[in-house]
């Protein structure tokens, strides 16, 4: 194994969190920083020719190559896990920018009480209301701690939207259920497509409070505080699973890379697949010495570093800790150990698929352009007499309507699945079909967790990560409730026919839900039940920080990237302002 000269900081992963940390350290310190990214290089120009639904949205050209590595899944510890052989319920990215390149750009903050979920729920409903086998925890921080960092993230990306709560003042037309915000959004709301405008009127007529979706596809051109400019969105409809062809949608390559490329102390190595985190000594004097990786030629390399920052995607953060034997792995039988615990996804479903009389021109749009309601999110509504805790938001977006994925979505009255009748119905409904999406909170349970699979291996011979994951009553009942509300909204939109969501049974790895899968290296206020402290610093190894959704104790009902970026800013401050001055535990 080749050993390279030591650097001050090594960052594992070149997505949103890794590159944001690299940019912050690069501009605020003189430290030498190396980012290791297992995929290839990427730049905005790569996307000028990517508007091909087949190669990008159907064949997943930008996603992780599963022939090299995937994960296994089982619904309960008594089952044998099977590999997810093709992409399905979530879509891990690969290459510089990671999943941040092909994301939708939906940018809502989490509701304030989600950070104190356990204590707030007990306070209001009593401990008896928490599900039997839950492992819900407070985050160890509050919304107020995070608010300034949310603001920084919104200005970094130039988010479009309308405030609904400016320093405590409710503002009609914005999200009146959101936490207080110190400033208005950096750019005005996006244009609103037809089907979303139908949803807005329907929601109003039912007494809800619709507002424009906060979007990383800005309504107008924007220059951020780093001096990086991006054009406004043109609503071409190629956002999700694509890189933005004009660089309007905020992506690490068009938002962070322009700054990093000018920083002499930061370098990015692509094709560098990290295999182990190398440790030295035992607690309380334990330190991480750096990482080993395999480069594109297959050579194994040791990169020593003073500070190691784990910033790969959720599942890989957890897997690297497990493969490196770093920290105690979680044992669901005893509840001991923290690495791998609190695996959560989201209750994300089409509450109602809505068939209309009139055409919708759905090819026009952006993945984050549309209308959302939060009246049934978090604890905004009373749960005393409901059979579940928490809730979620509803949204109607015009995300573009690739005809491969969307042809053949038909109302219940059409039975044909091929042939002339099917074709005719398909042609008629292709542009007359909308979806009311529900995005609900997923609680943490003792039995939903990650460990290493005993059977299946990656190309290099290392065990795959094993997910033990299934829905519980809380999610199934929340889904039923959301479906009924979705059907009411669909009727109010003037639906000709409605296809309600059929209900959640077992976790289905074939239905795309979202790439918002979280947990495994969670944050908390005590090393007994968390991997990192509230500054995302590993409790025992003080020169190891872990960034990303893997640090969420459980999942709120919103897209995670704003919270992930806000937490990254907060950690960057803690490293620059405190850790570098006096290395050691920050909490």
């Amino acid at each position, binding site marked *: 194994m080749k050993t390279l000269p030591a650097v001050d900081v090594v960052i594992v992963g070149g997505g949103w969190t890794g590159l944001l940390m690299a940019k912050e350290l690069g501009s605020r310190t003189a430290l030498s920083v190396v980012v290791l990214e297992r995929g290839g290089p990427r730049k905005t120009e790569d996307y000028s020719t990517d508007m091909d639904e087949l190669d990008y949205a159907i064949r*997943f*050209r930008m996603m992780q190559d599963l022939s090299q590595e995937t994960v296994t899944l089982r619904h309960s510890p008594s089952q044998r896990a099977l590999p997810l052989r093709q992409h399905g319920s979530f879509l891990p990215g690969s290459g510089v920018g990671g999943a941040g390149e092909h994301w939708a750009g939906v940018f809502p903050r989490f509701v304030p009480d989600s950070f104190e979920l356990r204590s707030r729920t007990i306070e209001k409903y009593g401990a008896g209301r928490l599900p039997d086998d839950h492992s819900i925890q407070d985050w160890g921080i509050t919304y107020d701690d995070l608010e300034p960092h949310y603001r920084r993230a919104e200005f970094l990306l130039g988010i479009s939207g309308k405030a609904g709560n400016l320093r405590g003042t409710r503002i009609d037309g914005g999200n009146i259920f959101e936490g207080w915000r110190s400033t208005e959004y950096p750019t005005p709301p996006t244009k609103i497509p037809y089907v979303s405008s139908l949803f807005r009127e329907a929601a109003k007529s039912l007494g809800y409070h619709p507002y424009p979706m906060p979007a990383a596809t800005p309504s107008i051109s924007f220059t951020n505080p780093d001096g990086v400019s991006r054009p406004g969105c043109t609503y071409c409809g190629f956002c999700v699973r694509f890189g933005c062809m004009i660089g309007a949608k905020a992506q690490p390559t068009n938002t962070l890379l322009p700054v990093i490329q000018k920083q002499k102390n930061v370098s990015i190595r692509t094709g560098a697949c990290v295999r182990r985190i190398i440790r030295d000594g035992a607690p309380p004097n334990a330190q991480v010495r750096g990482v080993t990786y395999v480069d594109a030629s297959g050579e194994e390399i040791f990169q020593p570093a003073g500070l190691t920052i784990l910033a790969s995607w959720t599942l890989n953060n957890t897997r690297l800790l497990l493969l490196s034997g770093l920290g105690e792995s979680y044992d669901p039988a005893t509840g001991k150990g923290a690495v791998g615990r609190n695996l959560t996804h989201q209750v994300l479903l089409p509450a109602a698929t809505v068939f209309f009389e009139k055409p919708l021109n759905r090819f026009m749009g952006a993945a984050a352009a549309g209308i959302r309601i939060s009246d049934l999110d978090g604890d905004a509504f009373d749960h005393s007499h409901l059979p579940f805790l928490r809730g979620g938001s509803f949204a109607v977006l015009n995300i573009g309507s690739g005809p491969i994925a969307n042809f053949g979505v038909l109302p219940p009255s059409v039975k044909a699945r*091929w*042939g002339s009748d099917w074709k005719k119905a398909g042609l008629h409904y292709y542009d007359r079909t909308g979806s009311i999406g529900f995005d609900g909170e997923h609680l943490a349970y003792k039995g939903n967790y990650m460990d290493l699979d005993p059977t299946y291996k990656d190309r290099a011979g290392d065990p795959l990560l094993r997910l033990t994951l299934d829905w519980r009553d809380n999610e199934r009942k929340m889904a039923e409730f959301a479906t009924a509300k979705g059907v009411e909204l669909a009727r109010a939109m003037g639906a000709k026919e409605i296809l309600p969501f059929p209900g959640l049974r077992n976790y289905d790895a074939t239905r795309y839900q979202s790439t918002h899968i979280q947990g495994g290296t969670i944050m908390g206020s005590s090393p007994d039940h968390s991997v990192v402290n509230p500054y995302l610093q590993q409790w025992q190894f003080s020169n190891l920080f872990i960034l990303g959704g893997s640090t969420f104790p459980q999942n709120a009902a919103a897209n995670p990237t704003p919270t992930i970026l806000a937490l990254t800013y907060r950690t960057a401050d803690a490293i620059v302002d405190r850790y570098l001055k006096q290395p050691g535990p920050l909490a």
Partner: protein
Amino acid sequence: MRRRQFLTLSAASLGGVLVFSLDRKSSLLTGQDKRLRIPLRFFDESEALIVAAAASRIFPSDDSGPGAREAGVVIYIDRQLAGPYGRDRFRYSQGPFEDAPAEFGYQGKATPREIYREGLKNLKGFDRLALEEQDARLQQIESSLFFSLLRRHTIEGMFSDPIHGGNIDMVGWQLVGFPGPRMSNYDDIDKHFGEAFRPKPVSLRQVTGIDVRPSEDEK
């Protein structure tokens, strides 16, 4: 090495000479009976004729407009199977292979190529059957993995960018009213409410002016 195989089609049957009007009535231009010899990458000619016939029953050419035949769906499928997708280049394909409930996704070992070769064995002479008999034959295999792939690939061949060999002359996009990779809808996104807005389709090569390389041409 196998003999080079071709699929011979009349130009008139392909979308290249179709004129498609806004009221969804198609009409063929006359005088185009030139024969086209299309080199096959995966199928042999008899297989290609069966796949073309079956795709044409799934997505027929009828009074609602052109179908799989005019779009060249068989050409699309042939190229997909010959390329990385056909041999499962990007799928996790290490064993052990076990049966599993549907929520775990396809767990089989067979690649799309193998599924087609196996499935086509049961459709010998299909292209020479009467249409009603063809439909009856497809109904018998409706629940097979082969049929579900064929159906999915037919949709892909109808509606993917023409760089992939199907959707010839964008007949599929014209049928459904999808304009392809249109660079900007900025001036239209908040207009045309309740009315069909149908810009003339453009392909990726037309929009970018670049000879974009599709995934099936990669190793």
